[in-house]
């Protein structure tokens, strides 16, 4: 029943206790705040950095070079653009050094729109991230996967970027993380810092167990025959909901694939589903020009052109400079439930 922020926090605690995490750090990551989304409250190795994203990634690389296991945070992915070249370097160190140095580095950062974040708390980063060879990039759409993907990110000896959908950080999962108490209020009393006086507060961690979601493994969250929907992160629950509605109201069922890993992505699952349905829709909230979804579309066209019944399609964020503060901007630039439902209906009903 944990929300995604609590799941990340518990994964980092598991990482500190069992997987050798030496440092969890970033802006406002340490006490007293424990992260602007509370994802790092109560962690033994959490500390605050100067407000300096380049210093954060550079220092994380240095810690990794010297044998540490760092997990660092860019407070919002909107502020990761000035570290793109540091990301490039972290991703190429192993290749450039002919295998001389591994780069066991985890960077986590909140991603996407949906918290009324205006221009600079609403960016999507996955398409930029997909252009960072040497990295692995994951994005959960629920708390249990957030826990499992974070553990995978920590265990993987390569740089892993964990993109956390901002709008889902407070979303509770219906499932339990192994070791988590069944009562959500009890969990909150155990691991949520008090709102006011935090001096002397210590978390009471549940006895958590390993639950690793392997990198590169998508999840088929709905099964159907009328089309394939490929999504991840924030729009994923909307895709599942739209598929449920169309199944209940119109008996049109869909394969809904939660990609979970942006790179490497689970091409096997995509390919099998496309062969089955012959109809493909790719949904994400990043801006539509040179979008990662276009790469998936290219592979679908390249490798399944003659397996398709209708044209493959995408539903993505509009190519606009930002998400405007007024909700009329956001709902008209980022795919909404209604947009997804319409796109699914069109996909399923277009004559072959």
């Amino acid at each position, binding site marked *: 029943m944990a929300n995604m922020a609590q799941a990340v926090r518990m994964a980092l605690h598991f990482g500190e206790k069992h997987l050798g995490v030496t440092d969890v750090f970033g802006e406002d990551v340490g006490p007293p705040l424990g992260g602007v989304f509370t994802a790092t409250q109560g962690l033994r190795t959490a500390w605050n950095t100067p407000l300096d994203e380049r210093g954060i990634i550079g220092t*994380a*690389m240095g810690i990794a070079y010297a044998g540490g296991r*760092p997990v660092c945070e860019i407070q919002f992915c909107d502020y990761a653009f000035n570290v793109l070249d540091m990301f490039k370097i972290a991703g190429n160190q192993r290749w*450039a050094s002919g295998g001389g140095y591994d780069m066991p580095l985890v960077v986590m950062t909140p991603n996407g729109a949906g918290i009324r974040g205006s221009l600079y708390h609403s960016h999507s980063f996955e398409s930029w991230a997909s252009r960072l060879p040497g990295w692995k990039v994951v994005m959960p759409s629920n708390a249990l996967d957030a826990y499992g993907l974070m553990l995978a990110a920590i*265990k993987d000896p390569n740089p892993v970027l964990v993109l956390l959908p901002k709008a889902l950080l407070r979303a509770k999962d219906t499932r339990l993380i192994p070791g988590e108490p069944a009562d959500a209020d009890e969990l909150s009393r155990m691991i949520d810092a008090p709102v006011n006086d935090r001096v002397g507060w210590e978390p009471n961690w549940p006895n958590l167990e390993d639950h690793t979601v392997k990198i590169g493994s998508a999840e088929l969250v709905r099964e159907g025959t009328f089309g394939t929907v490929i999504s991840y992160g924030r729009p994923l629950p909307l895709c599942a909901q739209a598929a449920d509605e169309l199944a209940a109201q119109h008996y049109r069922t869909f394969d809904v694939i939660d990609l979970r890993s942006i790179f490497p992505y689970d091409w096997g699952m995509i390919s099998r589903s496309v062969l089955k349905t012959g109809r493909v829709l790719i949904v994400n909230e990043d801006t539509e020009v040179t979008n990662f979804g276009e790469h998936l579309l290219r592979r679908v066209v390249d490798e399944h052109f003659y397996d398709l019944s209708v044209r493959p399609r995408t539903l993505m964020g509009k190519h606009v400079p930002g998400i405007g503060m007024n909700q009329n901007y956001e709902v008209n630039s980022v795919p909404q439930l209604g947009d997804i439902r319409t796109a699914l209906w069109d996909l399923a009903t277009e004559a072959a």
Partner: protein
Amino acid sequence: MPDANEDPPDIEDALLRRGARSTPYPAAPSAIRSGRDTLSVEVALTVFRQMLRTRAIEERSIKMSKSGEAYFWIGGPGEEAFNVCLGLQINKGHGPAHDYLHLHYRNAGIMLTMGMPMIDHTRQLAMRWTDRHSRGRNFVGHYSIPEWNVIPVTSVIEVQFAMAPGTALVQKRHGQKNPTENEGITVVVGGEAGTAEGDFESCLNWTTRPGQELPVLMLVTNNRYGISTDLDTVHTHRPIADRAIPYGMRYETIDGNDPVATWHGIDRAMRYCRRERKPFLLETMVSRLHGHSSSSGAQRNWNEADSLAAFEQKLIDAGAIDTNAVRALKDEAKAEADRAVVETMKEPEPTREDVYAFTYAESAVDTIYPKDFTGLPGAR
């Protein structure tokens, strides 16, 4: 025609003329002096020999870039005194008990002095598969030696200054837990032009957080140019070292063309970092004898002071060495460089099968790339 890389074109035999000045030879001295600083003759001759070797490999490297044995050259002729004096004082080894080196691309002298064979330099320059630093992938001088804590050099200016606090943080913690291994420091080197990047400021800031100071020796080699741009046109006339002042960091500016002064400047700064576990900003004024790189022609600039020629004269004048011994050392260094090149050119190049190699480390939690990168996921 005289070789443009070696002696001034207006002097037919510079070595003889220099030697003639100091005849008859004085009695062998016990020390080489510069101001209040001295070096024992033994150390001075070691520094001199390593400077000669460094110059020899750099000049041979420039020839390689012009002959077609290699393409791009960049390096540090003119910075030999700095590189050698630093290389001789490194606590060499693997892990946080030893020094970490975050270098840039003018530091061949550090590596040769630490014991790297010349062929490990020329293999990278000639883009061979045998290149231990990068398998023929990176520019020359972009060293990577995990056994000696040499962090991969990258062409991106100044990013090493953002990474240095990370290795130093691990070193400081390691020393606190293991008091007998509390001497390792992080050495980070860059040029003066690069200090305009924010990463330089990041290093100043991250290493001076109150109570959490880090043992980082920040070294700026100031050759007064960023490619073609004169420092005076893009930076205040205050010394680079003054940038330490608002952070309360120790700092000094030294003459990097004077090996005796350089040795002691590095020694003072290093001892402070090792003992106090705090940072030090050391600016060394150096020459750039062959311009920025092969992209600007790499021709010798005779207007720049030459630390090697000056030190040679100083040693001869002091009677620490004679011209015949100098000539023998030079011949030996050149022959060593030639042997490295000849051997290098026999060695294999990378092939198309090597393109993906070493992208990823093995991972037990990756279903697509458990071993290494193999092309696009599921590619047939």
